[in-house]
């Protein structure tokens, strides 16, 4: 059993739900990313989604677009992100999912990536723009290295698609809360409850809800019917707003504590 499955099992035993923060690697720089992962894990993050910056983030809103730009300006490269994870693994077993657009992975080499990712201790990979229809080859490579491919399902996914995707999915399923791009939103739509129920009919995998979740109340709301909540833009916006680097860890640490609190 890998770290993701173990984590959900442990949460299940204590009837808790997963808090899954997203950050873009290299924003504001890789040293900060490394420290942030450890801090978030210490403050109650159950799984970390680690974003690989890509020049053309077509599924992302302005907050993550700007984070991506900052990371790329700093020269953040995939190989350095992988090395960072190996350093994290020396002190923490928090499950880490690599979150990326397809092209940077493809150019790195899918086989090489999977091998290296397994070596450094990455647990799963989520590729925003890799549809299940195109994922076959990468999926079988990841399987060989015992890495989970995490799939997204959206309110627009038909029941046929849900049936198809849940057959391929590993680790957990990422239910997208709404049609749209990443970003903060005030109220969650009702469609996501329906989506989670539709997915449940087809799969026993844990389901985490993401896109637009930005407050403790929303995390709690989502966790009434799902197994976890993914919080991205809210955290990335906080990183952006923090002008004093020495306070970054404290700020993000207390944000995670707040989001994770009952």
């Amino acid at each position, binding site marked *: 059993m890998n770290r993701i499955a173990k984590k959900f099992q442990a949460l299940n035993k204590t009837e808790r739900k997963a808090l899954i923060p997203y950050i873009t690697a290299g924003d504001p720089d890789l040293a900060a990313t490394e420290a942030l992962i450890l801090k978030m894990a210490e403050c109650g993050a159950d799984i970390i989604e680690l974003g690989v910056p*890509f*020049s*053309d*983030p*077509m*599924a992302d*809103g302005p907050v993550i*677009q700007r984070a991506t730009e900052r990371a*790329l300006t700093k020269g953040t*490269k*995939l190989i350095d992100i992988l090395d960072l994870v190996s350093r994290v693994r020396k002190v923490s077993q928090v499950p880490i999912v690599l979150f990326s*657009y*397809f*092209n*940077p*992975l*493809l*150019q*790195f080499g899918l086989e090489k990536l999977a091998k290296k990712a397994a070596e450094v201790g990455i647990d799963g990979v989520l590729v*925003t*723009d*890799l*549809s299940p*229809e*195109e994922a076959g080859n990468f999926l079988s490579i990841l399987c060989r290295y015992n890495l989970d491919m995490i*799939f*997204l*399902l*959206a*309110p*627009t*996914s*038909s029941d046929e*698609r849900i049936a198809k*995707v849940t057959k391929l999915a590993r680790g957990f399923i990422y239910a*997208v809360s709404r*049609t*749209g*791009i990443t970003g903060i939103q005030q109220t969650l739509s009702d469609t996501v409850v329906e989506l989670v129920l539709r997915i449940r009919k087809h799969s026993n995998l844990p389901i985490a809800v993401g896109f637009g979740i930005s407050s403790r109340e929303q995390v709690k709301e989502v966790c009434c019917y799902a197994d976890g909540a993914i919080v991205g833009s809210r955290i990335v916006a906080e990183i952006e707003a923090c002008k004093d680097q020495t306070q970054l860890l404290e700020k993000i640490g207390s944000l995670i504590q707040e989001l994770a609190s009952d």
Partner: protein
Amino acid sequence: MENLKKILEEKTTDLNNDAINWPDSGGHFGNYGGCYVPEILMHPLEELTTAYQKAQKDPEFINELKHLLKAYVGRPTPLFLAQRLTEYIGGAKIYLKREDLNHTGAHKINNALGQILLARRMGKKRIIAETGAGQHGVATATVCALMNTQCRVYMGTEDMRRQSLNVFRMRLLGAEVVGVDAGSRTLKDAINEALRDWVTNINTTYYLLGSALGPHPYPQMVRDFQAIIGQEARAQILELEGSLPNLLIACVGGGSNAIGLFSEFLKDSNVEMVGVEAGGRGKELGEHAARFHFAGGGRPGVLQGTFSYVLQDLDGQIAATHSISAGLDYPAIGPEHAYLHDSERVSYVTASDNEALEAFQLLAKLEGILPALESSHAVAYAIKAAARLSKNQVVVVNLSGRGDKDVHTVADVLGVEL
């Protein structure tokens, strides 16, 4: 030895036969194409594919499109023998397929019209589009006015600057033009923004994509709507010359005017075809838009929904591009061109900014035609190619658009103050 030769020959014919039947049901042209998009878009794209397949077989749809292409766009466009240009070069006969004479001044309207009829059938009330040179934006704004449909066009702010005339045209036509300030502020960034709008407003909105790019079914659909160019040209040249042309030439941005001319001739193995990419002002990454130029950073990759040749750095970050023509200034090429390139059915060359500028001026003086700077790239290569061919050979150049929109740019480069 003989055997090997035979197998090789068989293989090439196979490829040629194949070329007509692509894409497969997943939108692949060989390995290229496909559907690389976030899950939110998958079902809407399936719906679009189904709606398109139905429309294609519906006589009502076909007849309405035919009627509007004739009565509104002004088709068929002439195939014009450029006599003075031919004499000036002293080689092959040069024919121009006059897509510049279409209503709105470019081939883009062929596709815009087809897609707006499809959008109406699908009950979509809001249209979004991206534009580079502004020709697709103008075509979309035009058909939206015609169909009384709400229209928003995304355009990079750099393109808005160099194609300001078209920005004003779109606004006159009632479209909302939204400037995109991200990245290189050109076509690629406009497409990102249009995709973001689309995923957000998926239920009400139709994305009217302007080139043979993006996820399935767009590359196929746009090709099919542009195929009228080649269908007409083939019949016209047979009537004028009694035989097929030796060579077809078209500029390639995303690839829609080129595939529109080529597709009808793919089965004619004696007809050579050349796509002309923007050579820009240098060979280094960032100085051109030549996706098939390996040393210049062009390699297979995934951008904006499709697997094709993409200008990128070693880490897979998409590169900046440069071309004097906004319509060719894009880091990826339509997936069918990637397939035609690898199968060697079509050759791809470049024309530089300067060559295009010279061709622009030459065609103006010799034929009284101001070509779009995009089309000027095709003319520039035609000048070279015709010189190498004999007088009894025939070249057809796709004059994809007219150059009025580019007069400011050309004046700027020539140091003329207007």
